[in-house]
């Protein structure tokens, strides 16, 4: 089911399509599509390409290097990037910390950090979760004590995605535990290239290492690296959560993965016929494609509410729930599609510069690891159970 676009929107889509076709390197495209890991350099080089085009931060205000795109244009851009196999822009800088700095930061912070984010000079990571604070984030205990013109930070962050590449962390710290848990939380920008910061990778069930423990021992953070007021960090964090709710639906990504699934199902044979001709499999494809169409339709509705000035309500939590269900559903069908070749575990095959013959079909290597890895999607960013709690309270008044 194609989007119905105005002529102007069609023109825009073609422009984006052309640019991507001309600028996404082949091997990057292949890796992104097959879910292979990209190196830091590969991420950065692609982001610089977008930066030079002026498309690195579509949602930012124009005067800070953003675009004047309509919500629909942003949706088209995301969808085209995904189907072109462009690596997703890492959210931590452009999408997560930047809006907070823009809204609550000092002029000095804006002048210094925003250009660096646009140029990908800094690699940001998110210092939220702690061993004892997962779904219950407000219970965090990492301590920040003001000491003259510095905070001294002690504690442990965990589940920190890509911290191994990061030189900056936006971090929720506790500066006061006398009052309500949500109070006394302070939002700090921490330079990770300093003594006291230790990053220790965590191996996940798929065997990959993209999340980390980050230990903070007597880490010095200048007061000018505090965003907004002391003790107001929770407000800023929630503002951030409310931001860009539609992108978590990952419609474009899922469309691309669904297309990939179709291609694989055309190659895989079952009883002498391509798997895609199997009625039961067709039905599963149709089911998930319809789920995805409904998801996209709700995304479009939320977007047009946005352009009508209405911010996305808590209903947007549905986008996270359905979005992750669709993503996980596709990873599951991919595993089903490759049959016995879900067994081999050859992580090297997913690394840059591996050039042996694949075991089984080339597309198989990343599929099972990806399936297991992607179970995280219903856990992080507020587990789907938490999302439902939010809706029950905020929307249904239960």
């Amino acid at each position: 089911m194609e989007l119905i676009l105005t002529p102007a929107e069609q023109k825009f889509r073609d422009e984006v399509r052309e640019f991507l076709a001309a600028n996404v390197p082949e091997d990057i495209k292949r890796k992104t599509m097959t879910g292979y890991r990209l190196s830091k350099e590969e991420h950065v080089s692609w982001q610089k390409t977008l930066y030079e085009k002026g498309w690195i931060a579509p949602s930012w205000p124009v005067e800070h290097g953003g675009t004047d795109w309509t919500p629909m244009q942003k949706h088209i851009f995301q969808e085209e990037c995904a189907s072109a196999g462009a690596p997703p822009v890492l959210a931590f800088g452009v999408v997560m910390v930047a809006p907070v700095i823009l809204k609550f930061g000092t002029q000095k912070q804006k002048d210094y950090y925003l250009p660096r984010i646009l140029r990908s000079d800094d690699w940001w990571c998110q210092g939220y979760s702690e061993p004892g604070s997962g779904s219950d984030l407000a219970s965090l205990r990492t301590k920040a004590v003001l000491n003259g013109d510095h905070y001294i930070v002690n504690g442990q962050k965990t589940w920190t995605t890509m911290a191994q590449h990061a030189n900056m962390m936006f971090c929720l710290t506790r500066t006061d535990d006398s009052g309500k848990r949500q109070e006394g939380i302070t939002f700090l920008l921490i330079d990770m290239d300093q003594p006291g910061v230790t990053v220790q990778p965590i191996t996940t069930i798929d065997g990959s290492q993209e999340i980390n423990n980050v230990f903070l021992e007597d880490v010095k953070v200048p007061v000018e690296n505090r965003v907004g007021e002391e003790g107001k960090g929770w407000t800023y964090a929630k503002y951030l959560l409310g931001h860009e709710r539609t992108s978590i639906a990952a419609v474009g990504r899922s469309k691309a993965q669904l297309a990939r699934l179709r291609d694989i199902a055309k190659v895989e044979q079952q009883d002498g016929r391509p798997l895609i001709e199997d009625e039961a499999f067709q039905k599963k494809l149709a089911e998930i494609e319809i789920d995805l169409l409904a998801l996209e339709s709700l995304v479009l509705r939320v977007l047009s509410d946005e352009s009508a000035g209405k911010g996305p309500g808590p209903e947007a939590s549905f986008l996270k729930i359905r979005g992750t269900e669709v993503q996980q559903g596709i990873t599951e069908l991919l595993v089903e599609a490759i049959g016995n070749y879900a067994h081999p575990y050859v992580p090297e095959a997913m690394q840059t510069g591996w050039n042996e013959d694949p075991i089984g079909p080339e597309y198989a290597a990343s599929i099972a690891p990806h399936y297991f890895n992607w179970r995280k999607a219903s856990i992080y960013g507020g587990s789907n159970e938490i999302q439902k709690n939010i809706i029950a309270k905020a929307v249904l008044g239960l």
Partner: protein
Amino acid sequence: MSFAFNDDQKLLAESADRFILDDYAFETRRKIMAMEGGFSREIWSQFAELGWLALPIPEAHGGLGGSTVDTAVLMECLGRGLVVEPYLAAVVLGAGAVAEAGSDAQKNGILPGVAEGTTLLAFAHVEPKARFNLNHVETRAAKDGAGYALTGAKAVVHNAESADTLIVSARTSGSVTDADGVTLFLIDRAAAGVTLRSYPTIDGLRASEVMLDGVKVGADAVLGEVGKAMPAVEAVADRASVLLCAEAAGAMDAAVKLTVEYMKTRVQFGRPIGEFQVLQHRAVEMLGAKEFSRALTYRAAGVVDGANPRERARAVSAAKVEMGRAGRKIGQDGVQLHGGMGMTDDMAVGHYFKRLTMIDVMFGNADHHMRRFARLA
């Protein structure tokens, strides 16, 4: 592509919701169902005055020329009130078929009456053995002098008993499931050889089995081109399907609200059952099912008027699948969350459940449209 209502649509929704609230309470509906033909002629003329019957009818023929999205906005409100008046049968299907296939003369002859509420139509296409295959037409129209003689049977024709004119499909050539060779006829319900066996449906509407035994009609009774009716029938069925999804969206909305309200008042184990997390999440899933179904429905409604038949079919089938799944979940869980009370005829939730279940069946259930969607992939 915009997903927001325009001002006219907002006004329409407000006035329709207002009407349901003021004049179409659950108990009123019960009384109306007991009336002759299973609906209220008085309310029907109110619909006419409000311009609702004219809404989808072309301006050239006494209508307002509203889009399918406009009509969806109205149908959603009607769904909220479980309205039993024959809007689908007479306006969406009946007038829709005439507008789709009829000659200008036929349109001028029939549509203004529908818009004014003086003419009622019913769409007699589905047959006893057809299941969900639209092409399955056994009823035969044999040449009979200048005209035709129709013989056959039509199944579950909603509101046939109150219709002035039946729009009947019959084979003028080809064999049972051919797409070609089907012709639409305008037939006076009172014509000789037309026998109706009428009954209530489980969701509170009225329908009939229509027997045709050598019913004679003139050549002018042919609606559209002889033998070429199927594209029109499919267009009408697709538009009706997406509008049924809109009606369902309203019914789901109401069922979810009723359930949540009940959860806030029903006390067990010393607290409102709405405080139990399992029931909270169930209600949240119901709301989500409705939101996704509704969004996809309006998207499909926006497509049907313009798109090519394949695009139209994909969009409508996707919406019908999503609606079928959502309606089932909301109907079943709505009753479950009401507990024993939900099983009683006195509570509205069960009636929404029944209507949602039957909407799924009309013009093909979720499974049928899943296959159709997949085939057109």
